[in-house]
């Protein structure tokens, strides 16, 4: 099945009556439940030919679920989908492709060792008896690229291309099977600014060719730059559809967050432990982190906000020693912080990574081993483990942090997400670290455990530790930290205190717009 046939060359978009403005896809009344929990309630979407339609919403708003229903990954519980005005049932990815819907995923699905042309025709190479007609393949790719105004060499090996060009190849691949709606999910998250600009040009070219584009992004500036219309989702519902001239930062963020609940958490002024001070000056880490400086004192919970890719994970990893610093210095209580994780742990550091399955726990090992692993220095003598001390240490942690089941020999792989996180957190809390670095400490953790995590963090801070907490959860950022630094493009962008922080303002700052609240840092 090859859609692009040179013999009967498909008419160029300009030759036929333009279909721009006609509705390509309509989804209405879409409902979806998982295990009895409603994820989508009466959600809808319509996308027209020749428009870039943006879809925005916070994490958990239902964006990915509705995309997965449109593309046949999930089946809807109720609702209807129309393509070109005709009702359709999309029950598989193949159905979606047949309807002309293609998704460009964040993780690209290209084979790096093959050429552009080979990738585009992967699995459906033209030719006979297993012999690929290379000339024909190249010619078709050239024709396709020309038709949409793309600059690409069909013989280039994908491995040698930049990310923006690889996305272009993905898009061509979609177009080669006659995609009329292209869905892009956070396409710029792995692109540099210059590359993003190239992608936007590609998108503009697609729009001129009357392709419908559904564009999902967290970055407001991109959305203003590109989109013709914008659908905002919140809590599984569509809050509204904005026309181009209605799109502005304040409106969008307010719609995304809804009624703001302000926590006038009137806790008394905290006691700072001035002698426990972490000082970061002009810290850099390649292109990911640029010239970052701040001070944090014992007793303080410092929140770090920002989008994925803003440098927040790199910041904590650089301080901890997990990433090599390319410039700047870090001191704790006046003493320089080492580049060795091992030395830093002994100096009182602890680090809870973002992806606990990959970087946090050892799945095949027991709860006990997973907790003790960070404290061998305290539980051994001359290289031999002190079994009694180890068991006491582990039993205390299991009891103090309420890890269930209360069985130190239980495999961590079989625990719930919340308990796994308590194991990773408990491993450090047991040491009472002077500096605890947390990267997304409550991702995939249920509400109950979340409250416990906050409680442990606050307790540790009250005993004089410095807590630095990276989070995407706006609710968490406005409630837990005493001070919030929002990062954008590898540096600090905006600062809030607990009093000035609102979810809308943090979201605005993370998207690269200075809000009225708080204090601009650049």
């Amino acid at each position: 099945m090859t859609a692009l046939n040179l013999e009967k060359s498909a008419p160029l978009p300009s030759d036929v009556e333009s279909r721009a403005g006609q509705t390509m896809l309509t989804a209405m009344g879409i409902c979806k439940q998982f295990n009895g929990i409603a994820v989508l309630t009466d959600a809808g979407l319509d996308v027209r030919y020749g428009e870039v339609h943006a879809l925005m919403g916070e994490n958990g708003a239902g964006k990915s679920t509705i995309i997965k229903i449109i593309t046949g990954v999930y089946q809807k519980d109720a609702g209807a989908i129309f393509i070109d005005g005709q009702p359709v049932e999309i029950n598989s990815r193949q159905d979606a492709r047949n309807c002309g819907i293609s998704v460009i995923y964040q993780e690209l699905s290209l084979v790096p060792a093959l050429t552009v042309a080979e990738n585009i025709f992967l699995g459906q190479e033209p030719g006979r008896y297993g012999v690929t007609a290379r000339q024909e393949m190249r010619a078709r790719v050239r024709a396709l690229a020309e038709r949409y105004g793309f600059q690409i060499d069909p013989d280039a090996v994908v491995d040698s291309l930049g990310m923006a060009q690889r996305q272009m190849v993905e898009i061509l691949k979609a177009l080669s099977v006659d995609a009329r709606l292209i869905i892009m999910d956070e396409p710029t998250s792995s692109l540099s600014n210059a590359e993003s600009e190239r992608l936007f040009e590609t998108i503009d070219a697609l729009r001129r060719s009357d392709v419908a584009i559904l564009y999902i992004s967290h970055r407001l500036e991109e959305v203003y730059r590109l989109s013709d219309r914008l659908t905002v989702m919140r809590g599984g519902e569509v809050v509204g559809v904005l026309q181009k001239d209605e799109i502005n930062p304040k409106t969008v963020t307010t719609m995304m967050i809804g009624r703001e609940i302000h926590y006038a958490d009137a806790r008394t002024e905290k006691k700072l432990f001035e002698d426990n001070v972490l000082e970061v000056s002009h810290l850099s880490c390649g292109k990911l982190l640029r010239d970052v400086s701040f001070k944090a004192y014992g007793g303080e919970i410092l929140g770090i906000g920002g989008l994925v890719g803003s440098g927040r994970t790199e910041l904590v990893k650089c301080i901890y020693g997990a990433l090599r610093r390319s410039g700047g210095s870090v001191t704790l209580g006046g003493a320089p912080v080492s580049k060795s994780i091992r030395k830093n742990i002994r100096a009182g550091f602890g680090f809870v990574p973002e992806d606990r399955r990959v970087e946090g726990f050892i799945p095949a090992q027991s709860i006990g081993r997973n907790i003790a692993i960070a404290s061998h220095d305290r539980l051994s003598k001359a290289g031999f483990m002190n079994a009694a001390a180890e068991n006491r240490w582990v039993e205390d942690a299991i009891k103090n942090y309420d890890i269930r089941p209360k069985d130190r020999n239980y495999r961590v792989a079989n625990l719930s997400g919340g308990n796994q996180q308590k194991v990773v957190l408990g491993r450090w809390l047991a040491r009472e670290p002077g500096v605890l670095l947390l990267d997304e400490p409550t991702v995939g953790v249920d509400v109950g455990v979340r409250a416990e995590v906050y409680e442990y963090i606050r307790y540790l801070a009250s005993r004089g530790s410095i807590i630095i907490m990276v989070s995407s959860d706006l609710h968490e950022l406005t409630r837990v930290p005493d001070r919030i630094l929002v990062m954008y493009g590898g540096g600090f962008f905006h600062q809030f205190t607990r009093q000035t922080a609102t979810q809308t303002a943090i979201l605005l700052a993370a998207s690269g717009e200075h809000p009225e609240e708080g204090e601009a840092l650049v």
Partner: protein
Amino acid sequence: MKIRQFIGGAWGQRVAILVIICAVMAVFERQFFTAANAASVLFTISVYGTMACGMLFVVLLGGLDLSVGSMAGVAACIVARLVQDSGYTAEGVIGGMLVAFAVCVAVGVVQGMCVTYLKMPSFVVTLSFKYILYGAAPLITGGSFIYYQGNAVAENPVQRFVYSIGSARPFGVPLPIIIFVFFVVAALVVVTKTTYGRRLYAIGGNDTASALVGIRVRRDTIVAYIASSFCAAVAGVVLSSINMQAGQTTGNNYEGSVLMAMIVGGINLAGGEGDVAGAVFGALFVGLITNMMTLLSISPDFQKFAQGAIILAAVCINAYSGRRAGRVKLATAPAGK
């Protein structure tokens, strides 16, 4: 009884399997319980077992050491050459062993560095060294086999010594078995009692997470390759003393049997799971099965067939029971117990 526990499970089942093999042999082949055969089985097991104790370290890390057979051969050749050249003096024996162990440890360091710093797959590095060392052996011996001169009543104490490594029986127990037991105890202590043992399991289970809790993954990995190489060197010296000869084919392809012992012993080749008891059981199992087939006059060619089938069956049982338990990895004995 769960299939998972049948092989590589608790001691009860392991012992049962060994008893069954012995019982079958007792019924079908009288020779099995003769003193000569018992000695032969024990010698084989002690050589495989000593190698397995070292290779266990590398396998727990998620690696493989395919060079142990050739490593044993090179160690045996170095000792034999220096002993012979010195004219059976004490300096020759001591110097020979020091040189042999030093060379093997150095090769272990190089292998470990290839795996850690150059990020080469363990399989590729150790396979290369299997051939490099095999090819190097004739350079040491001068191309032919070196035959030891010596027996239990020789005048020269060094000649008595080289003979006794393989054949002495203090308290009625063959010395190779005592050496094997020594390494089993040493491995057991390291794996279960030391922080290094804990780190081995941690790195094998998740090396990224291990690095983030301050484990020096590279250093610990290199140490494991050293341990494996050292045990292989000791096994090689014992083997050459049992046979009173050393040459290119000494220890050749032993890694296959050691690997089979690992798999039958329920040690997860993906790393992080397994124990010394499993390695010991595996060595006993492999030694007995090999002996059984030899006594039953099964040709060496067909023995290979049977060995392959046993490995396949063991992996299959592990994988099947692992899936039933809802796990992804090939796994048997739960770690941490």
